[in-house]
C-alpha cells in the first residue's frame, strides 16, 4: 500500500463495479490535489480505473500490477 497517499482504499476481494463505486465514494471525501491509493484484485479494475479517471477528470497517477494485486494512485481533480 502506498504510504504517500492522502488516503488508502482496500478493494481487495471486491468485484465489478464495487472497486469503482468505492473509489468514487472515497474521492468525494478528499480535497482537490489530494491522492487516493487503491488496492484491488479484480483484473477488470485496470481498464475500469482508466475509464473512470478519463470520464471524471481525476488524474490516474500510476497503475501497477503486483502478484495478482493492482495498485492505483488517483489524484482528485
Amino acid at each position, binding site marked *: 500500500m502506498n504510504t504517500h497517499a492522502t488516503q488508502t482504499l482496500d478493494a481487495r476481494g*471486491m468485484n465489478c*463495479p*464495487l472497486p*469503482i463505486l468505492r*473509489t468514487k465514494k472515497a474521492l468525494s471525501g478528499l480535497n482537490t490535489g489530494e491522492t487516493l491509493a487503491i488496492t484491488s*484484485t479484480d483484473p477488470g479494475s485496470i481498464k475500469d480505473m482508466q475509464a473512470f479517471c478519463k*470520464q471524471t477528470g481525476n488524474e490516474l497517477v500510476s497503475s501497477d500490477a503486483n502478484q495478482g494485486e493492482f495498485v492505483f494512485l488517483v489524484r482528485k481533480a
Partner: protein
Amino acid sequence: MGAIDKIIPSNLHKSQLDQWFDQRFESKMAEREAAHVPSLAIIATKGTLDWAYPPFILASTASALGWDVSIFFTFYGLELLKKDLHLEISPLGNPSMPMKMPFGPQWLKDINWKIPNVVMAGMPGFEKMATGLMQQTVKNNGVASIEELRSICIEADVKLVACQMTVELFGHSHDAFIPEIQDWIGAASFLPVAQKSDVCLFI
C-alpha cells in the same frame, strides 16, 4: 444572405468569414460538449436474481462516472423495488446458466451439472436450491448483493421511478415498495426522459 451582406464590411472576403465561423463553431461545440452531463435511462422489466444485476450495476457505475441516471421499473421489474427482496433464479429454460457448486474441492466446483429440464421441472424446491447456490457464488466472488447495489444507487441520487399500471395490473400495494421511489408514472411520462438521454437501455 441579404441581411448578412449589409453587416459584413466590403473588404472582408467570404472565405475569411467562413474560416472565422468554422473556428468559432468548433470552439463553441467543444465548450458545449465539455459542459454536457451524460445521461442514462434504463427500463427494467425483469424480476429474477440474474436479471436484477444489469440495471443496478450499470446505474450505480454511471452515477460514479457523474452521469444523470433514471430507471423506470415496469412489469416484473417492480420486484426489484420491494422492501423485502425475494429474488429467485430459474435454471429451467435458461440453458446458458452454469450449474456449478460454489463449495467443495476445486474438481467438484469445476463440474457443470447438465441437468435435464424434465428433472428441474419435476423436482420440488429446485429453484430455491439454484437461488441459494447463486447467492453463495455471488458472495464467494466478491460481487455485491442486489440490496447493496440498490442502496448505492439511492445514495447516488439515481432516480427510481415505477410503473403505476403494473401496480394495478398485478394488484400490488404501494406499501410493499421502498419509500425512495420518486414517482409512480406511465409510459408517457418516461418516454420524454428516454428521448433526452444519451444512453437508453431496455433490460
